[in-house]
C-alpha cells in the first residue's frame, strides 16, 4: 500500500533536480524507476493509474513526468492529453515508458502530447541521456516564459504612462488655451497621442498670441517639456510680456530642463488687437505661409529651436509683418512636409509646391491642405505627427471688451472695484524710453485693476497707441509715411531700433487717473506728455486733429482711429506733444 502514496524516502531538499512523477500500474516498475531517479537527484511522486496521476497533478506540479501507456481506467495517452490541457502554455516534459514497440503506438505517444518514449525494459544510460535532453528543453521554455511575463508587464506599464501623458497634455496644457472659434486646426497623431503643442492666449490688448511647437521625442518625453512651457506662456502673456522676453524665458527654461539632445522647435505669432501688424518668430519649424491679396509669402525659420543654446533668441529672428487686411496664416509641423506616400516620396517633394500655388487664391487654407495631403498619402501609415493650424486674420480674432476669463485666459473670480479713485504716473527718460510695459504689467500686481478686467483690453490699446506715438513721432522723430511703402514697414522698424540703440534723450510722462462712477461705472483719464518738439498743425501725417476724419489712404493712422472709437474724448494740446484721453463706462 505504501506504493500508492505519494511519499518517498527523501524530501525535496535533497532533490536538486526537482520532482518527478511516475505513473505506472505495476508497483515493481514504479519502485525500479523510482530508485534510479532518486539516485539521479529527483524527489519522486508515484501514481498507480491515470486518475491518481491527475489527482496528484492538481495538488503539485512536477518537473518531469514518466507515463506508462497501458493502464486500467484512463490509459497513458488520455492522461497525458488531460495533463497537457491543464498545463495550457506551460511546459513539463512527459516521457512515455512503454513495452510496446510497434511504430503506430510510438507515434501515438507523441500525438497524445508526449515528448519522448523509452521502451521497457529501459536502458539506464539512454534514460539518463533522454532525461537530460528533456530538461534542457524544459529550461528553455521556462526562460522564455519568464521573459514573456516581464515583457508583458513592461508593455502594460508603458501603456499606462502613455495614458498619463495624454491626460496631462490635454488637461493641464490645453485647458488654459483661449478659445478662438475662427482658428482651423488639423491634428493626426502617429502614436497614442500627438507630441506637437498648440497654445493660444489673449494679449492684454485683446489680440492673439499663438505658440506652435514640436518637441523632439514623443509621449511622456514631450509632455514633460510642455508643462513648464504652457505655464510660462500663459503667465507671461497675461502679464504683458513682449515676444522676445517670452522667448528668452522659454529658452532659458528648456535649456536648463532638457538634456543636450532634446529641444523644442517653435513658431510664435502675436497679433495685436489693432490688426495693423503681426509679429512672427520661427525657430526650426517649417516655413509659415501667409496668404495675402498678392499671393503667398513664406517665412522660413531664421532662429534655432529653443533649448539648445544658453543665449537668448535674437531680435533679428522676430519679424514684423504689415497687415493690409484679408490675410490668412498657415502653420505646419514637419510631419506635414515629411508625409510619405506608397513610393516613399515626401509631400514636400511632390504635392507641396502645387498646393502653395492653389492656396494663393483660397480663402480657407486648411481644407486644400488636407485634400492635397490625403491625395499624396493615400493609405500609407505615417510615422510622424501631422499638425497644422490656420489663423484667418479678421476681427473675430480680437476680443476687446471681454469677460474677465478671456483676458486672463483662466477662470478668475469676478470682484467689484472699490469705490474711490487712484492716480498713477510714470516718467521714462532716455535709456528707459523703450521700457514701457503693459498696463496689466505695471498695475496688475498693485491690485489696482481688480474689478476692471473687462476694460483692461481697451486701456492697453489706448495707452500702447498713445505711448508709441509719443515715443516714435514725438521723440524719435520717425515719419509714419515711411510705413506705407512696400519695404517701408521693415525700414521703419529697423530705423526705430537704430535710433533707440544709439541713445536718445527725451522723456515721456504718463498719468492715469481712475475714478469710480455711480451704477458700477467708472472712468480713466489718460494723459501723456513727451519732451519732443511737437508738431506743426500743417504736418500732414500726424497728429490727427480733433476733428479730422480718419483717412483710409493713411493706414498708419488706423491705430488712432481705434483709440478714438474707444474713448469718450481725446484732445491734443496746441503744440502736439501732450494728449489727454478719457475712457468711460
Amino acid at each position, binding site marked *: 500500500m505504501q506504493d500508492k502514496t505519494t511519499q518517498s524516502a527523501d524530501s525535496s531538499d535533497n532533490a536538486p533536480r526537482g520532482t518527478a512523477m511516475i505513473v505506472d500500474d505495476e508497483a515493481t516498475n514504479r519502485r525500479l524507476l523510482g530508485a534510479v531517479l532518486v539516485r539521479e537527484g529527483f524527489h519522486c511522486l508515484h501514481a498507480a493509474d491515470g486518475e491518481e496521476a491527475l489527482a496528484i497533478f492538481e495538488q503539485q506540479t512536477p518537473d518531469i513526468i514518466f507515463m506508462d501507456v497501458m493502464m486500467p481506467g484512463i490509459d497513458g495517452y488520455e492522461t497525458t492529453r488531460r495533463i497537457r490541457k491543464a498545463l495550457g502554455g506551460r511546459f513539463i516534459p512527459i516521457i512515455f515508458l512503454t513495452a510496446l514497440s510497434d511504430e503506430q503506438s510510438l507515434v501515438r505517444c507523441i500525438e497524445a502530447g508526449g515528448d519522448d518514449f523509452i521502451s521497457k525494459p529501459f536502458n539506464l544510460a539512454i534514460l539518463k541521456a533522454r532525461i537530460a535532453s528533456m530538461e534542457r528543453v524544459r529550461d528553455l521554455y521556462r526562460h522564455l516564459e519568464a521573459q514573456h511575463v516581464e515583457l508583458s508587464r513592461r508593455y502594460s506599464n508603458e501603456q499606462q504612462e502613455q495614458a498619463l501623458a495624454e491626460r496631462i497634455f490635454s488637461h493641464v496644457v490645453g485647458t488654459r488655451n483661449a478659445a478662438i472659434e475662427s482658428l482651423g486646426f488639423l491634428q493626426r497623431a502617429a502614436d497614442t497621442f500627438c507630441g506637437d503643442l498648440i497654445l493660444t492666449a489673449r494679449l492684454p490688448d485683446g489680440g492673439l498670441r499663438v505658440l506652435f511647437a514640436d518637441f523632439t521625442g514623443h509621449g511622456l518625453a514631450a509632455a514633460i517639456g510642455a508643462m513648464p512651457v504652457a505655464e510660462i506662456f500663459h503667465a507671461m502673456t497675461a502679464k504683458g510680456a513682449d515676444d522676445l522676453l517670452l522667448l528668452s524665458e522659454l529658452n532659458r527654461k528648456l535649456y536648463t530642463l532638457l538634456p*543636450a539632445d532634446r529641444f523644442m522647435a517653435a513658431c510664435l505669432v502675436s497679433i495685436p488687437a489693432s490688426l495693423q501688424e503681426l509679429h512672427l518668430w520661427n525657430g526650426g519649424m517649417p516655413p509659415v505661409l501667409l496668404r495675402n491679396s498678392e499671393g503667398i509669402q513664406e517665412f522660413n525659420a531664421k532662429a534655432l529651436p529653443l533649448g539648445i543654446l544658453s543665449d537668448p533668441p535674437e531680435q533679428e529672428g522676430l519679424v514684423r509683418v504689415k497687415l493690409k487686411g484679408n490675410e490668412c496664416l498657415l502653420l505646419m509641423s514637419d510631419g506635414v512636409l515629411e508625409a510619405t506616400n506608397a513610393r516613399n516620396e515626401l509631400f514636400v517633394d511632390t504635392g507641396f509646391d502645387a498646393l502653395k500655388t492653389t492656396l494663393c487664391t483660397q480663402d480657407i487654407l486648411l481644407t486644400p491642405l488636407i485634400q492635397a495631403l490625403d491625395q499624396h498619402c493615400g493609405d500609407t501609415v505615417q510615422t510622424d505627427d501631422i499638425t497644422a493650424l490656420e489663423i484667418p486674420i479678421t476681427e473675430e480674432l480680437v476680443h476687446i471688451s471681454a469677460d474677465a476669463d478671456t483676458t486672463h485666459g483662466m477662470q478668475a473670480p469676478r470682484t467689484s472695484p472699490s469705490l474711490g479713485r487712484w492716480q498713477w504716473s510714470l516718467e521714462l527718460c532716455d535709456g528707459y524710453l523703450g521700457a514701457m510695459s503693459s498696463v496689466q504689467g505695471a498695475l496688475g500686481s498693485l491690485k489696482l485693476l481688480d474689478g476692471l478686467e473687462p476694460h483692461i483690453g481697451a486701456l492697453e490699446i489706448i495707452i500702447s497707441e498713445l505711448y508709441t506715438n509719443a515715443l516714435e513721432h514725438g521723440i524719435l522723430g520717425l515719419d509714419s509715411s515711411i510705413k506705407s511703402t512696400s519695404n517701408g514697414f521693415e525700414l521703419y522698424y529697423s530705423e526705430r531700433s537704430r535710433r533707440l540703440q544709439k541713445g536718445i534723450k527725451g522723456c515721456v510722462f504718463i498719468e492715469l487717473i481712475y475714478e469710480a462712477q455711480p451704477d458700477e461705472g467708472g472712468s480713466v483719464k489718460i494723459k501723456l506728455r513727451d519732451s519732443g518738439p511737437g508738431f506743426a498743425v500743417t504736418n500732414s501725417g500726424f497728429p490727427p486733429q480733433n476733428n479730422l476724419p480718419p483717412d483710409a489712404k493713411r493706414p498708419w493712422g488706423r491705430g488712432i482711429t481705434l483709440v478714438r472709437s474707444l474713448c469718450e474724448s481725446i484732445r491734443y494740446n496746441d503744440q502736439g506733444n501732450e494728449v489727454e484721453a478719457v475712457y468711460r463706462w
Partner: protein
Amino acid sequence: MSIECKIEDGGKRLVIVVQGRFDFSQHKSFRDAYRDQTGQVKEYVVDLTQASYLDSSALGMLLLLRERAGDENAKVVIKGATSEVRRVLDIANFGRLFTIV
C-alpha cells in the same frame, strides 16, 4: 553596418560615416563611434553623403556629439548632406552650430 568610422590625420580627425536612415535606431552605434576617444581628436567629421534621411532624434545625436567635442575643444564638421537631409538641417538652422560643407 550603418555607421562606420575612420581615423585620419594621425588620430586628429575622426570621420563618422552614416549610411541610410539616420534616426533613433542609430543612437547607440553613433555614440559608440566617438565614445571611447581619448581626447586626441581635434576634428569630428560626420559624413552624410550616403545618408538618405534625418529626423529630430538624429539632430539630437549631433547635439550630443557637439557637446562632447566642446568639452574637448574639438571642431565638428557635417559634410555631404544632400536634398532631404540638407533640408532638415537648414530648417533647424544647424548651420549656426556646425560647419556644414
